[in-house]
């Protein structure tokens, strides 16, 4: 009977996946957000090319005594004040020349553009990988708890409740403070104190309940549906039912969650890095660059503003994309009707 149902769908209309894909493709929000994301990802990937072949600078090395030649003059990257009492040293501002500190330097004499590009790599990478981690565990817990119910559900749900009872940022900060000094040693898992894996692990973990709880509720509902009862009646095994009946019905929701989680995790990473408990120096992320820029707000505000703008644009694009995915996958919305 199950086979017949699928066959009937294919015979009389396009598959739901095909419908969703077409809706997604025709949505302007998808195109715009996808183009923005693609551009940002491409720029981040090209960071080493920019720093090595265009700017000729290493954005992870302090260059406090650096100078360069511009228009026949030697220009210091960190420029001492010559007015009044002669106090303070200010990093060079934008030169608008790609080969010489296009957008200026930070307090360590490092090229801001190169830092932002490299920072984008870390921010996006952490956001993406930690979201995968979140989704993996959220789906695993949600499906097991929702499908098996009873004691297993109670046990897993209480753990989720316990984690969710902590304010997310407070929990992330607490974990970061502890783990960033000592690293993480858990059985065969070992992450060093400055490893990128630590923020990925911390951010990935704290958001699991956010995704797992609604997925569990959905599984509880799906489990009561006729096609699942029929599968049970036919004597299908638990793993067979989970993989062939439950998961395919849960995955669209998970797909809707994913871009939103990437945006959320990226913001969390930036917040932790801003508080110096995320990505550790000399590595950069947009959060650490904002932190660096705080010390230059009065003389070189671009150092803090630019990575902030990058975060806003990327998070907005991801949310826009997430909305479009939700609309495309939601069977209750009128927009699903292809005209």
């Amino acid at each position: 009977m199950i086979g017949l149902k699928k066959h009937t769908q294919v015979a009389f209309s396009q598959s739901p996946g095909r419908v969703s894909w077409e809706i997604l493709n025709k949505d302007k929000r998808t195109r715009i957000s996808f183009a923005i994301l693609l551009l940002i990802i491409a720029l981040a990937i090209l960071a080493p090319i920019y720093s090595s072949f265009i700017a000729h600078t290493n954005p992870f090395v302090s260059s406090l005594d650096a100078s360069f030649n511009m228009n026949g003059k030697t220009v210091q990257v960190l420029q001492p004040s010559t007015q009044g009492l002669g106090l303070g040293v200010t990093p060079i501002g934008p030169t608008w020349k790609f080969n010489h500190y296009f957008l200026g330097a930070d307090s360590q004499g490092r090229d801001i553009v190169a830092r932002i590009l490299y920072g984008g790599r870390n921010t996006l990478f952490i956001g993406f990988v930690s979201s995968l981690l979140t989704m993996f565990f959220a789906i695993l817990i949600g499906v097991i708890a929702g499908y098996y119910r009873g004691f297993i559900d109670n046990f897993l749900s209480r753990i989720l409740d316990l984690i969710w009872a902590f304010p997310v940022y407070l929990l992330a900060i607490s974990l970061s403070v502890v783990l960033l000094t000592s690293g993480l040693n858990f059985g065969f898992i070992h992450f060093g104190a400055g490893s990128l894996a630590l923020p990925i692990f911390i951010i990935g973990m704290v958001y699991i309940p956010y995704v797992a709880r609604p997925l569990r509720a959905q599984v509880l509902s799906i489990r009561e549906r006729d096609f699942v009862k029929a599968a049970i009646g036919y004597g299908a095994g638990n793993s067979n039912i989970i993989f062939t009946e439950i998961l395919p019905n849960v995955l669209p929701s998970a797909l809707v969650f994913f871009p939103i989680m990437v945006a959320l995790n990226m913001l969390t990473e930036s917040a932790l890095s801003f508080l110096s408990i995320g990505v550790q120096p000399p590595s950069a992320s947009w959060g650490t660059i904002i932190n660096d820029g705080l010390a230059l707000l009065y003389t070189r505000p671009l150092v803090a503003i630019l990575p902030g703008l990058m975060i806003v644009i990327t998070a907005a694009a991801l949310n826009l994309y997430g909305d479009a995915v939700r609309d495309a996958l939601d069977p209750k919305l009128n927009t699903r009707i292809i005209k």
Partner: protein
Amino acid sequence: MYSKKNKLFKVATISLLITLVSSLILSTNVKADGNSLPAFDKSKAGGTLKLVAQSAAGTLDPKINYTAQYWQLYVATYDGLLAFKYASGPEAFKVVPDLATAMPVISNGGKTLTFTLRSGIKFSNGQPVTVNDVKASFERVFKVSGPTAGTFFNGIIGADVCLKTPATCKLDKGIVVNPSTNQVVLNLVSPDDAILYKLSTPHAAINPAATPGKDQGTTPIPTTGPYMYKSYDTNKSLILVRNPYFKEWSHDANPQGYPDQIEYDFGVTPTAAVTAVENNQVNFMFDQIPADRLPEIGTKYANQAHISQLTAMWYLPLNVNIAPFNNPKARQAINYAVDRNALIKIYGGANLATPVCSILPPNFPGHVDFCGYTKGATPQKPATSWTAPDLDLAKKLVKESGTQGQPVAVVVADDDVNKQMGVYLQSVLNAIGYKATVEAISGNIQFTYIQNTKNKVQISVTQWFQDYPAAVDFLYVLFGCASFIPNSDSSINMAGYCNKPLDDRMKAAITLGAVNPTAANAQWGQIDKDMMADAPTVPLFTPKQLDFISSGTKNYVFSPQNKMLFSQAQLK
């Protein structure tokens, strides 16, 4: 009989000589230039002096706290038998009688100092100050294992036992008191040329005898000065109000203060503090001014900025007991690698600091111009001053030391300037072959954290401001064996450096200083050179003090000994 008389004569002669020499030391180090404070003007008193800092400076206990931040307050709250004069200019290094009626009578070859305690002085809780309080205060230095117990006061008879068993410390032979005559006799094991200075520091303050023999933390101890502590919350503020029992007994030692109240607020970032001072919302900010605010202060607010020379140093203590800096070549490597000028840029520029290679600051007793760790120089053939780093030599030394690739954590305070220095040092350490990380921790605890061997700090960024103008305060206090107390927050020898032959030479220089300060200073200069050959630290630069005060703050007085004298600030 004859021999006894002869001995007495000799002792009397030596005592007289010591007294004369001591006076000479003080008068040579301190040239009176007429910068004493004018008499108290009651019409200008009143108001609340508002101070801000990013963080509190830990315990309020004057026997334990060893921070410039709170010593600046202690001079307005606590008194010792002696004090550094309340004055500006070199006059501020002069030692004057405080709770003692006069300078001590020095006898017994410089080993006995006799004081007479002033009568009629009360603590802020109304109790009279007695000679028993004096004795108890010195015993308490040991009971709380104060950071200077082993360096400032280890020469008192009985101190050796107290250092071993602090809880039951008794100085019955070292401090002999007579309540009927108010006499206090301080007996030393050997003459100490810096004892008068040491007795003028807050660690020698007189507190009530009933003060418990443990760190009082945030609980204020009754004071004798013009102000007392009303409340202390390390996360919020420290409030000082007038001491109702204070009556000025010595204008030179501790004059009446002008503000009615002093409020120290914590949790204010340096950037916010600058803005608050500019807007006249607070009178003074403690922290280092962020580099990006300096240009505007140097131009728009130049008349509110006060730059003064300091006898101090910013330095990197290298833990000589754990890897990689338990290897002398690794220590020499980092000395060669660090670009002092780069760090001065972070600090605020060449007008605010001078690069150094020696432990004793320039123009300090015993200082010799030398630099063994600059391009083209070696500890054996030093240059006269630092010119440039030598990264190639540093890399070579790291390779030779076999410490290449080892992890190194740089521990810094979490303010902007220190963090930036940490990032720079990380970059340098990575460049010469280490795997460096930066640990920025709250300034409230960083200073004590880096002292405790339990925390296994390899390298840190810190500062040292003179306690008194003598070489012993830099070399012996910071790098003497007695200053190294494992597992203690009060182990000011952060490098954990204990070189017995050098330590013996320092002790000999201390004794020599009591009779021949010039010869002693020559020895200190050589000790500085020999110690730096062993490189337990990386001296970075001698800073200048930049005080930024609000336009509403009048009568700014800077003492090179005690920095800005808060009690003399006028708000009317």
